[in-house]
């Protein structure tokens, strides 16, 4: 099933960017942040949640099992 990937960005009045990646598991989220950084400037701070360390599709499989129960 196709997964929705969403990026929320805040561009401050002097051009600084805040990027929030949603719904992306694994290193893909870091790649997105890095690709934007490459074009825009310098990555000053980053924070990766536990989802970053999950394999894509892990939660979907677990959720399916729970539903069957």
């Amino acid at each position, binding site marked *: 099933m196709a997964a929705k990937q969403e990026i929320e960005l805040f561009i401050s009045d002097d*051009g600084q960017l805040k990027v929030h990646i949603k719904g992306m598991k694994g290193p893909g989220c870091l790649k997105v942040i890095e690709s934007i950084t490459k074009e825009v400037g310098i990555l000053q701070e980053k924070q990766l949640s536990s989802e970053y360390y999950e394999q894509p599709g892990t939660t979907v499989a677990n959720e399916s099992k729970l539903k069957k129960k």
Partner: protein
Amino acid sequence: MFRLPAGRQAYCCTKRLKAPDAKRRYSVSGEGIIGLEIRCLAALIKSIVDLGMEYRELSTMKTSDGVIHKADLVVTDKNGKAIAFEKTAKGDYKVITDCSGLSSAQVKDQQNIIKKIRQRYSYNVVIDQLKKQGYVIAQEEKVKNNTIRLVARKWS
């Protein structure tokens, strides 16, 4: 260390399981703060044009300290003062202004123009980059402090 804004703790994995409204919320898998560096002259020119300003390319600007700067791009503010963009050895463009003889209000005007150019540049580059990656801009709005909020989506 990067701090999450107040109220965002519910998105972290352990608390998300406990939060009663967790299903209604989205999870943030990564966050980043990116400081702007102006690197692309074409995008800079587009941003200046978008803002309805005029520019001239490859010019010189003499500041009150006697230094002559080789400017790649110069815009003039409403007080007739030049704002120049000069390419550095690193490859990005630094802003050169000369505030001598300007009142504090005029200096503020100049700073506001620089901010507008920087924000527009950032906007143009980000939109371009997201579209190249297959994202569609689903939402765009101005929020507090003149910040632009964008939401980009794609299905994969």
